[in-house]
C-alpha cells in the first residue's frame, strides 16, 4: 500500500522552531524575495555548486511555485525541506548530498 508521500512527492515541511534553528546554521542564504521562476531554480543550482557536501543552502522567497519547483530542479543533488509561514513567505532548505 503506497503512502500519500509516494504519490505527491512533496518535500517535508518544517515547523516554525525547526525553520528558525536551521536558518541560523545555514552555510549560504539566498534572498529570492520578489523573484519569479525560473531564476530561483537557476540560483539554487548555482548555489549548490558553491557549497560543500553536507552544507545547508536556504532560499527565502515569496514566490509560491518555488516551494515545489526548486526542490525538483536540484533533484538528487540535495535533500529538500520547506517552511511555509502562512503569510506568503516561504523558505526552502537544501542540504547538499
Amino acid at each position, binding site marked *: 500500500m*503506497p503512502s*500519500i508521500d*509516494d*504519490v*505527491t512527492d*512533496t518535500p517535508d515541511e518544517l515547523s516554525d522552531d525547526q525553520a528558525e534553528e536551521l536558518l541560523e546554521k545555514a552555510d549560504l542564504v539566498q534572498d529570492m*524575495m*520578489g*523573484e*519569479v*521562476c*525560473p*531564476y530561483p*531554480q*537557476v540560483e539554487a*543550482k*548555482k548555489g549548490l555548486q558553491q557549497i560543500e557536501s553536507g552544507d545547508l543552502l536556504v532560499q527565502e522567497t*515569496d*514566490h*509560491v*511555485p518555488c*516551494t*515545489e*519547483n526548486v526542490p*525538483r*530542479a536540484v*533533484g538528487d543533488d540535495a535533500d529538500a525541506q520547506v517552511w*511555509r509561514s*502562512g*503569510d*506568503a*513567505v516561504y523558505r526552502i532548505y537544501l542540504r547538499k548530498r
Partner: protein
Amino acid sequence: MVSTLLVAAIVGIALGAFLQKGRFCFVNAFRDFFAYKDSRVTKGVLAATLLTMVFWGIAYQFGYYQGFWTPDWGLTGLVGGFIFGVGMTYAGGCASGTLYRAGEGYLQFWLTLLFMGVGYAGFTVAFPTLESTYFEALTFGTGATLFELTSVPGSLLALGVAVAAVLVYATLTGRASTAAAFGERADTAQLTPTALLAPVVGLRGFVRGTVAYFRGLARAWRHPVASSKQPWDPRTAALGITAAAVLWFSQVSIVGVTGPEARWTGYLLSRVGVDAGSFDYWGSVLFQGQGVGMTVDMVMIGFVIVGAFLAALWSGDFSVRVPKRRRLPNAVVGGLMMGAGSRLAPGCNIGNIYSGIAELSIHSFIAAVGIVAGVYVMTHWIYREVGCAI
C-alpha cells in the same frame, strides 16, 4: 444578459481559483520539462486539454455550443507563437499565469499585464500595414476545425484523438522506463522487442498513476478544509478547468485570454478619451463593429483575477509582492512580446494550446508548435549557465 453575466462570473472565478490552486502555468509545464524533466504540470495541461476536447466534442455533436474560434491558418501561427513563447518564458508566466498571479498580489505581473496592453495597442496601430504585408504573405488557408471538416461524430473524433494522444504518451514514457530497466534485466528485455513492450509498460504506468492520483484525491477529501489550503495536484485543477470550460463552451464560446485582454485595452483607452473604435483592429476586428464596450468575455477574464485572489487569500498565498528591480525588464520585455506575439499569431497559450487543440483548430496546431519552440529556445538561454535536461 443577466444570466450570461452570471455564467461569466462563475466561470471566471472557477478558472481563477483552479489556476491558482493547481499552479496551472504553461511556462512551468514546458520550461521545467525541458530544464529538468519535471512533468507534473505538463500532465495537468495534457489532462485538461484532452478532457476538454472530449467534452467539447460531445457538446458539439449534440448542438450545445455557440461557436468555434478558427483564425485563418499559415505561418503567422509559427511566427507569433514563437514570439509569444519566448515572451512568456522571459516574463515567467503565460497569459493565464500572469492573470492568476496578478490576483495573488504580484506587482510584477500587474506590470506584465500593463506592457501586454502596450503590446496590444502597438499592434493595433500597426495593424493596417501588417494586414497587407505580414498577414497577407503568411496566411495560406481559411480557418477550420477538424470537427467541422470531417463527418465523424464530434464525440468519437475527440475520443479517438484523445486515445491516440494517450497511446503516444504511453509509448514515450514506456520506452523511457524499458530503456532504464534494460541495463538491470537484460535477459527479459532481450526476449520481448522493446518497441512492442513500450506502449504496454507506459499504459500500465499511466493506469497506476491515475489510480494513485484518485486514491490521493479520496484521501484528501477526508480533511477537506486542511486539504483545500494545501497546493493541489495540477490534475485536480485540470478537472475543474475542464468543467468551467465546458459550461463556457455551451453558453458563450471557447476560452481565450489575450483576445478579451486586447478588448480591455481598447475599452480602457476609450474611457480616457481615445477613439479606439476608429482603429481598424479594435473597431471592426475585436469588437466586430458593435462599438467599443464591455463584452461578456471581458467580464469573465476580470473574474479570473478575482477567483485567483480569493483562492490565494484562503490558502495564505496572498500578499502584495514587490518585485526585485533586476526583474523589471522581464515584465516589460516579456509583456510586450506576449502582447504583440499573441496578436501576430493570433492567440495565446490558452487560445491555441488549451482551447485551440481541444477544438481541433488547424491554426492552433501550428501556433502551439510555435509557442513550445519559443519556450524551448528561451529556457535554454535562461539555463545557459547550469544546463538543461532536454
